[in-house]
């Protein structure tokens, strides 16, 4: 069981869940499971060509998967995946 942490801005698309439990051997499988569970997340994470969007940073423990083996990075049971959002707020006013 691997835990995937969902940041606040994406929680509306995961029924408010902050942590998702996944059974996956690598990052690609984990992401497929995530999208399978919450299809409305997909456009927020992937572009039209099915690639992770450049502003989406996916971390395995402390490391960006870009610095590991990308989507092929293998996952161990105790690992934790984390999506890191691009947020801009400093003093946001709700529009």
């Amino acid at each position, binding site marked *: 069981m691997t835990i995937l942490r969902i940041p*606040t801005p994406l929680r509306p698309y995961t029924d408010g869940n902050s942590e998702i439990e996944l059974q996956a051997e690598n990052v690609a499988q984990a992401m497929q499971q995530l999208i399978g569970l919450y299809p409305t997340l997909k456009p927020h994470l992937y572009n039209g060509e099915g690639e992770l969007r450049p502003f989406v940073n996916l971390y395995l423990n402390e490391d*960006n998967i870009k610095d590991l083996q990308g989507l092929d990075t293998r996952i161990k049971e105790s690992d934790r995946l984390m999506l890191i959002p691009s947020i801009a707020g*400093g*003093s946001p006013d*709700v529009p």
Partner: protein
Amino acid sequence: MYPELSHSEIHRYSRHLLIPEVGLEGQRKLKAASVLVIGTGGLGSPVALYLAAAGVGRIGLVDYDVVDFSNLQRQVIHGTSKLGVLKVESARERMLDLNPDIQVEVYNEPFTSENALRIAESYNILIDGTDNFPTRYLVNDTCVLLGKANVYGSIFRFDGQVSVFDARRGPCYRCLFPEPPPPGLVPSCAEGGVLGVLPGTIGSLQASEALKLILGIGEPLIGKLLLYNALDMSFDFVKLRKNPKCKMCGENPEITELIDYEAFCGVPGHDHEEGSAGAGWDISASELAQRLKDGEPLRLVDVREPHELEISHLEGSHLIPLGQLAARLSELDSAQEMILFCKAGTRSTRALELLVSAGFRKVKNLKGGINAWAKEVDPSLPIY
């Protein structure tokens, strides 16, 4: 080399002087230092207050806004007596009251590609307390071009991020976020808002990092990103690496001067009229009131979040939060004229773009949102 401290300064900073890592020499370093704070809002408030109190000799403030009632929930440097006053002036007065021994320089203008290098040049460190992507990329690029540290902080609802981007010693902001999210994709507007104390936490961390950089003590957050969540009370650190292909600070940088950041981020400029979808797509609150009074069969679609209905709502409107709109198009009849609204018109503008791209033509945006309705048509509703 560093300026001397007066007896009164020694008395004022005695709690610093007692710490071996600061001491007299450290305090003199602080006095000699200069820090530019971009934005005097939620993050800039604690940053500016703590840097002033700590005795940073020269502090610059950049902001072009005035103090608004809705700022006071978190922007603690300002006060009720300062409503309508320029934020930089309000902040300067408070900082000099806290510490008259420092110098506060104010720039009552937006931070832009035209003025950024000129303003930032004479400061040692920049602190990013802005609230939008274009200015964040501008602050980053300015720091990379000038070879300065960028103490970064960002907040959203209960989440905060802190890092120190210094391209001379580690990654820059673009190494982590090569490009901003397309406007409307990340639900920053529809899901907006922030816990008032959150910028206090994050801004205080930014101030700590700035003081450490000046003093040359501890381990700055270079190459590390702190992720804070107030609900979980979690502090997570992740590693950031310099991207050799970074367009700004990589081996072969493509960007060698400041660019048009609003075009880069695809968002309108500072002078964009908030809450307007543009000519032909807007309807004013008073015009809508008249058409409803005339009995026209208009469908009112509220794209706010459910909890906002408790604050104010329009009779007979149909709620579809912006985040759900794409999945609930079947509830809408493209033959019937629709008026979309939200709090102030920004989310409904996004909703309108979404509907138009899905083939809807008979749609209009209530300019200024339900707040404009409260102001122009029904004063019994609160403005929020």
